[in-house]
């Protein structure tokens, strides 16, 4: 074997290791869309609260329920869009959408996310809602860092940024809304655009 053969071997080893353990067809565009939904949703919540009689959010009442519905819609639309665009991209790459690598990715992403979601619901039930924004950012960031081992490495950095925003948010809960907009809206758009330019566009 010549040196060229050995180099090819190493390349093939790397390729197989990645292909067999990481799901790489995450669509960058779905990140951008999630960011846009978050911004629209946040705009709607802001309008709701500032146009209400009290002009701030309390835990019971119609406005609060509408904000919760708003949050749910953002999450729902983001997930549907991500699944749709990722399925499309996986098909184009000849990658299976539901294999061991994508299963592992989703399971490891969901563990911190579900724990965080339940925790937030529990403390909301105890009338503690000052840290909701911080907790959402923190648990989402941890979910991304945890999932990054099973996908393209870059989502790790998005995770770290969300965690930092979450910690800042915990110190200044008064800016929770704006940090939430930065974390879920702007960061998703920035990150999604970067991923799109780095991975998706090149292949077209």
């Amino acid at each position, binding site marked *: *074997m010549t*040196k060229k053969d*050995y*180099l090819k*071997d*190493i390349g*093939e*080893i790397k390729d*197989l*290791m990645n*292909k*067999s*353990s990481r799901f790489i067809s995450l669509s960058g565009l779905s990140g951008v869309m999630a960011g846009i939904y978050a911004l629209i949703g946040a705009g709607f919540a802001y309008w709701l609260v500032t146009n209400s009689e009290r002009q701030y959010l309390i835990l019971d009442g119609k406005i609060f329920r509408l904000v919760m519905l708003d949050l749910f819609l953002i999450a729902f639309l983001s997930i549907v869009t991500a699944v749709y665009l990722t399925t499309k991209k996986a098909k184009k790459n000849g990658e299976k959408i539901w*294999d*061991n690598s994508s299963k592992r990715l989703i399971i490891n992403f969901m563990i911190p996310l579900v724990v965080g979601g339940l925790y937030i619901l529990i403390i909301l039930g105890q009338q503690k809602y000052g840290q909701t924004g911080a907790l959402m950012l923190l648990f989402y960031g941890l979910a991304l860092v945890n999932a990054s081992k099973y996908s393209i490495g870059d989502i790790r950095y998005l995770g770290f940024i969300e965690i930092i925003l979450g910690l800042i948010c915990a110190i200044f809960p008064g800016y929770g809304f704006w940090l939430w907009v930065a974390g879920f809206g702007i960061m998703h758009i920035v990150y999604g655009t970067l991923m799109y330019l780095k991975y998706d566009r090149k292949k077209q």
Partner: protein
Amino acid sequence: MSIITNINKVFDHRFRLGIMSILMVNEFADFNTLKELLGITDGNLASHLKALEKVNYISISKSFIDKKPNTKYSATKDGVVEFQKHIAALERIINSQN
């Protein structure tokens, strides 16, 4: 010390190297997963798996899923150590000839 010390003859085949690569980063893999990832025929894969099993680099566990036989392959401790040695040797060769 010769430059090709630690080059492992058992791994001197791209499919065997491929099988080991997959088993290094996965706890286990079944026959069909290996087949798809490597793009190899049944018989070819079976013979390479046998060769790796013979030197005790991989272990095999058989079970049934929905009454269908399912064979899982995983790397043994020996296999992991030998694979790492082999990769280090490959790297040395590549670097030395630069």
